[in-house]
């Protein structure tokens, strides 16, 4: 969670409070808060950390970082199923019914 992942702003919801937008992280799309980069535009790249855009980034750097993070397996860590991952690491089955209560908030 320490890493901030670059993504492309594909839509902005100007009526949201706080200001938010849809960000594309190399195919995975998630909403992020844009309150700290209020003048960002659709098509620009931003660095997103725990659902908050923190700074702009140029496209070339953003794409290079995304490629690296994918190679390091960090995109899976950031956006994948944390319960399954924890179960895998623990060498046990995933905690039962996590889909009902754990994944809905993601």
């Amino acid at each position, binding site marked *: 969670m320490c890493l901030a992942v670059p993504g492309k702003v594909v839509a902005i919801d100007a009526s949201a409070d706080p200001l938010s937008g849809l960000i594309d992280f190399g195919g995975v799309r998630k909403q992020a808060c844009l309150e700290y980069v209020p003048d960002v535009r659709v098509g620009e790249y931003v660095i997103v950390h725990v659902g908050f855009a923190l700074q702009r980034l140029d496209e070339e750097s953003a794409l290079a*970082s995304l490629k690296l993070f994918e190679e390091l397996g960090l995109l899976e860590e950031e956006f994948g199923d944390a319960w399954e991952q924890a179960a895998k690491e623990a060498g046990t089955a995933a905690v039962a019914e996590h889909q009902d209560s754990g994944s809905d908030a993601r």
Partner: protein
Amino acid sequence: MKYIDEFNDPDLARRLLDEIRATATRPWALMEVCGGQTHSIIRHGIDQLLPEQVELIHGPGCPVCVTPLEIIDKALEIASRPGVIFCSFGDMLRVPGTDRDLFRVKGEGGDVRVVYSPLDALELARSNPDREVVFFAIGFETTAPANAMAVHQARRLGLANFSLLVSHVRVPPAIEAIMSAPACRVQGFLAAGHVCSVMGTAEYPELAERFGVPLVVTGFEPLDILEGIRRAVRQLESGEHRVENAYARAVREDGNPAAVRMIEEVFEVTDRSWRGIGRIPSSGWRLTDAFRAFDAEHRFDVTRIRTEEPAECRSGDVLQGLIKPTECSAFGTTCTPRTPLGATMVSSEGACAAYYLYRRMNAPTPQATRAAREEMNPVA
């Protein structure tokens, strides 16, 4: 040769390594502060590609690793209570407390949920008015603006069932503590890029001056890290010690002022304990009095927690750069990602996990390291 071919621009990597090699005439020890940088370094074998005069020491920049055992135990206690929805980032699930972890608490019936953002936890509080929703607010300066916004919104919306279990830490006092330690060998820092994306670089010139160390703000890609090392070594060789920004595409000198304003409205500086390291003055944030009602430690009675650190675990020494992970006798034997003794082994950004993951299982002796470096050296 294996590693350098994996760089996205191997030619540039070779040129940077050439310049580092040509510049470094004496031994220098640099610390990369960020756990993400540590993983990138080990994954790409940057430490092995460097000339033997330049040593990288891994720093304490993994928020999961430095969250103190006492706070983990408080999280486990709160998460076990009926009526509580305990929200956390996924990488805290398997961080060991004194006798269990959040993953186990969930298995025992606790309502532990993984969220991507603190705003997701806020939404859970809004949609579950009859439950207490607690968010585990850990992290460095990069995470603080998000957590600050969540609690700010909670107050604005009048959500009385939302609180934060806060364990925020700050990088500059950690640098100060590392440099003040008698056994410190660090002569320069690769400062964490995304921390500076938020905070800017204003806190660093005083540290560079006081301790006589270069501080080079550095990104996460292999070429970013080589460039940070190149600049730090160049300063050291010429007897300089100042702040340089080698990650200008994401870091402005004043950081993100809107984010800093929000942090300062919600949090105030406080002393914090760091797991394995101990108390560092002014090294963290806590909620201000105006937001104290949203502090989970005030809302729940968690004062009777008794913690017990595993005696074998030397993660504190690893986090301070005093030993490499492989110098711990538990590494790879009693301590593995499956049976972690400390957070540095379980966190995706932990130094021990990086060494384990990238097969640094049998650490060569220093002599063997030199031989291995020569053997691997792509440009010698």
